[in-house]
Structure formats: C-alpha cells, structure tokens
C-alpha cells in the first residue's frame, strides 16, 4: 500500500493536472489510508492549488489550467466533505470574497484571474461579473456574508464606480463590516487612499497577498 506522502503527492498531481476523476479517486484513497480529511485538504488539495498559482505566475500554465485545477479541487471537496463533517471539524477558508468589475466596466479578464488565484489560495470567491452596480456589491456582501469586496476598473471613467461602493457602505453604516480592495490598470495606491479603500494591488498575485494580509489583520 502506498504511504501517506505518496498518496498526498498523487492528489497534488491530479489537482495540478486538472484531472477531476483522478483527483476524486486520490482523495478517496487518502481517506481509505486513514489520512485525516483536514490533512488531505491542507497537504494535498491546497498545496496542489497553490503550486498551480505559482506556475501561472511563471507562464507555465494558463487561465484554462487554473480553472480545471479549481474544478478538480471542488471534486475533491465533494469527496472529503462528509468525512470533514463527521470529524466535527470545519475546512478553514481564509475568508469570503465578492469580486466584480465596477459599474460601466466590461473588462473582466484581470478580475477573473484574481478570482481564480484567490480560489486557489483557499478563499470562497463569488464572482459578480462585469459592470456591477454599487448597490449589487452591497446586497451581495450582505447576503453572502463577505469579508472582502474586491472591485476592478480598467478605465479611468469607471474608477468612480469603486468610490461609489465605498461611499455607499459608509452611508448605510456598514463600512467597517467589510474590507474593500481595488485594482485595475489605471488604479493606484493614491486613488485607493483617496477613496478610503482598505487596499490596492497592482497585480493579481499581489491581490492574493493583500487579501491574506487583510484577513490576518
């Protein structure tokens, strides 16, 4: 019988290759071998996803491979969930993020890449898509109990949509409930400071670092 590290390595590989069926099978093998579901999540699933994110930064894999890895990760969680519940533990996530492009902005690729990297880093991510109104950010943040609201803008004339979200949260007295992060090509740290956002990241990978830091603070 394969040892623990071999089984976790096999699961990691299946995740990295985006092989949903193999990932599901490997997760079951881990459970059958007596590896705790939480260890399977941390050392198999999350580690595999993290490595895919690193490969993406080096242009060794691309957005489709990240999506396939995330889907393989979802399949693994389906296998592990009953065992996690039975153990009385909860799979920990760094937090819940709602993400979208600001009102009027239809550019989504950069935002989608960040959403995917956040998922790979273990966040629960809800992608609201493009041209998202400030009121929609607020309603979704409330209903999904978001920790972080992430807003992208690729045009200077859609950046005010980011400010609108911050202002709306303040006006309804819920500014302190959520961390707001902003990004997009024309967005700067100065702009983030000016509108009262909690953080700014220039790149998708910096966005993940920022989100993790904010959840730790």
């Amino acid at each position, binding site marked *: 019988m394969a040892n623990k590290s071999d089984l976790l390595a096999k699961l990691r590989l299946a995740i990295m290759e985006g092989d949903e069926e193999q990932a599901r099978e490997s997760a079951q093998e881990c459970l059958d071998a007596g590896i705790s579901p939480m260890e399977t999540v941390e050392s198999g699933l999350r580690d595999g996803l993290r490595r895919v994110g690193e490969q993406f930064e080096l*242009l060794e894999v*691309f*957005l489709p491979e990240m999506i396939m890895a995330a889907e393989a990760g979802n399949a693994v969680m389906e296998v592990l969930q009953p065992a996690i519940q039975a153990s009385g533990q909860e799979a920990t996530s760094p937090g819940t993020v709602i993400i979208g492009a600001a009102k009027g902005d239809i550019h989504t*690729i950069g935002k989608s890449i960040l959403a995917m990297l956040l998922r790979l880093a273990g966040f629960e991510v809800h992608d609201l898509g493009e041209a998202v109104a400030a009121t929609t950010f607020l309603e979704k943040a409330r209903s999904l109990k978001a920790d972080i609201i992430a807003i992208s803008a690729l045009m*200077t004339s*859609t950046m*005010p*949509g980011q400010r609108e979200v911050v202002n709306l949260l303040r006006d309804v007295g819920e500014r302190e409930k959520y961390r707001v992060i902003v990004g997009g090509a*024309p967005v*700067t740290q100065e702009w983030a400071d000016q509108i009262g956002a909690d953080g700014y990241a220039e790149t998708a990978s910096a966005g993940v670092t920022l989100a993790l830091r904010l959840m730790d603070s």
Partner: protein
Amino acid sequence: MIDFFEVIKRALNGPYYSEQDFNIKLLVPKVREVVKEYGIRYDPETPVPDDDQLADDVFQAGLALCEEVGCYCKDTSRVIRFSREEILEALRDAPVNPIFGEGRDRKAMIARRPESAESPYCYLGSGGGVVSSEEVFARLVEGYGRNPLTDSVTCPTLTKINGMDVVAGSPLELLACIRSVELARAALRRAQRPGLPIMNSIATAVTAAGKITGSAFGLRDTDCWVIGFTSPLKVQFERLNEVAYVIARGGQHIGECGEILGGYAGGPEGVAVVVVAYHILSILVLRASVHLTFPMDFRYGCNTSWEIQWPTTVSTQAISRNSHHPVMNLTYTAAGPMTEMCLYEIAAGQIARVASGGHIEYGGTSKAVKADFLTPLEPRFASQVAHASAGLSRAEANELVKTLIPKYKDQLADPPKGLKFQECYDWDSIEPNQEYLDLYGRIKDELAGYGLRIE
C-alpha cells in the same frame, strides 16, 4: 461578403452557449486542437521568427479556429458563426488601402508584408493614455501634430471636465466626449495640420452614446473610429451599435483586439492563432477598414516583454502574408517618459512589428494609465524607429530585439516611473527639455551603433 444585417441576424439567432461554456467547452479545446493540428510551436529563443511556413500555418490555424468557434455575442449569448466559404469570401473582399485625412494629410494605409521596405503608416499619440486636464490634452495633441512622421493621431483620455471626475455612462461622459473632439480639432489646427485624421475617435468615450454624441461636434468621416472586441472572441451590442452608425455615415473604423497571454487563449501559440481569428472577425463582424492588435502580457500590463514578442510578430506575419487587409500593432511600454527603459521598449516594439509586416500605433507610454506620464517625444521616437526599420530582414530585427529586451526585462515588474509631461517639456513651446533631448540623442546613437540609422 455577407452583409451586416446577416451578422446581426446570427447574433440574435445563432447557437446558444453560456459564456462559461463558450470559454471553457468551445474556445479552449478548439484553440488547443488547432495548435496541435497545425504543429505550431513556440520558440522562446526567437522573438522575431523568419519562418514563412510557421506564419502560414498560424494563419490557417486561425482560419480554422474562426470557422469552428466564431464570435460570441455577450448580449444574446449566441455565437455568430461563419462557413469557410464566407470566411474566404470576406478575406477576398476585405477593404484594401483605406484612405484617411484631408488635404495635405490625406493618406492611404497600404497593407505591408514582412520585411517590406515600404514605410509603415504611423498612427501616433497617446493610445488612450490619460491626462489630468484639458490644457495637457491640447498641448499633447498639438505636439503629436508637429511630428512630420505623424500620419494620424491617437488622442488622450480626459479624466476631468470642469474639475469633476468623468463618470462612465453619466452626462459628464457625454460632455467630456464633446470637449475631447473640440480640443483635438483645435490643437491640430494650431499644429498647422488641420487635415490630420483623428484616428481613435474619442478615447474618453466608454459608451456608444458618448462616442456618437461627441462625434457630432467635429469628427469627420475622413477620421476614424476604434471599435473593439472583448476578449476572448466576443462582441457587445454597444460596439455593434457604433459599427451601425459609422457604416451609415460612410465613415471608417479600426477593428481592435487585445488578447491576453496566459488568458483563455493560453500560451504564445494560442494567442497567435486567436489574433488571426480576430483579424477575420474584424472584417466580418466589425466591418472594419483596418485591424489593430496588441497582445498583452498580463503580468506587467504592457506588451514589451520577451514572451509577448513571439505571438505578436508571428500573428502579424501570418496576417500580413495572407491577407490584403492592413494590420497595425500598438505598443504599451511599462516605463515612463524620460527613461532609458521606455525608449528601449519603444525601439524593440517597433523593430519587431515593422519587420513582421505591421503598421504602427504608438501611444502607450507608462501602460497608458498614469495621468500625464506621456509626452510627444515617445511617439516621435517610435515613428523614427519604425521608418528606420522598414526593409530590415526579420533575422536582423530578431538580433536587434534580442539585444534590446535584456536591457530592461528585469525592470518590467517595477519599471521606472519617469517624469510627467509638465516636468520634462517646456509648457509654452511644447518642446522637450535638454535632459530629455540628450537621452533621446544617446539612445539614437546607440541604435545607430547596432546598425539602425535614424534620420
């Protein structure tokens, strides 16, 4: 070629796909399939390949992709699809040698081929780069007009009007669009080039309403609009509304696409093939007179990295060898004005693209996103390098690009910001300061040392 009404009919009635299914179940596997079927392989050692067979294979792969995938309409979730016969007919009937401008500045854009000795058409200015005030806008455009190599201008984006932030979709957008056109036209008159075409219509516009409204305040049918796809291989009714308007006026427009390296198209091979598919869709769906392409490296927000050159040059060669419909490349630099890095980036970009058969748009200094971090000297330098590069062999261009990119590639992640227009130009004369002129002279001398003599 099938008409625009038929395109709209297909946008309304074509096969239904959810957007995610279009991306993942249709596009991604088809890109991989054609890359494999046509044996396309990225060569990381050669940013400017000179392999005609590779270029032709990329074109055929792009044609096959266009036929199999088509164009996704985001408003209807329908795919606009074309048969091979319709695609071939469109390539045969595509607009050729479009003419822009008036009077002394009336000029045709004639499709080039790789290694062509014909000078490229130089579309110069801001590339939609942003400015803080109307005064900076006006001075920049006048500066662009004063460059004798400028064939058409790309104007900046106004971020404020009457001291207020321009908000997309609000009345401020419409008012800023009107102001942009008025300022640009007046600036070109001051530059003594009243006939020079404004080629990016109104960069300030986000909506079709903004662009159409602004155009009524001074744009001519001899100017040009820029109408873009959404990545990957998608279109919106907002943009098709602009197409309908321009066609009805008898005007002309550029079909624009900026595919992302590492996105749904995948790696360099996939990006090259997808750019060819855009070229065909630009003719069929957008009904454009010119195709503009700018593959982007998402890691740096620019397109001067080593890895982005191959898909850019190979797709340009593929198109320029196999289509008489002109193709143009836009360069975005990471670094800002009055930095060595910015000038090296510009030089590498123009050499690679011109030797591959493209015309140039230059105007993306500082990634075109930092307000006022752009001047008329970068597009002037780009046009001089572009003219000097006409007639270079691709092998010569490859060696030059391989010499230039290592000079800045380690700084791409954290590029030098440079100086604002107001800081390195004389405000009244609209001339660069001596320090910037000295730097520009040094880089020109260095390029001459490599064999690229700039007049």
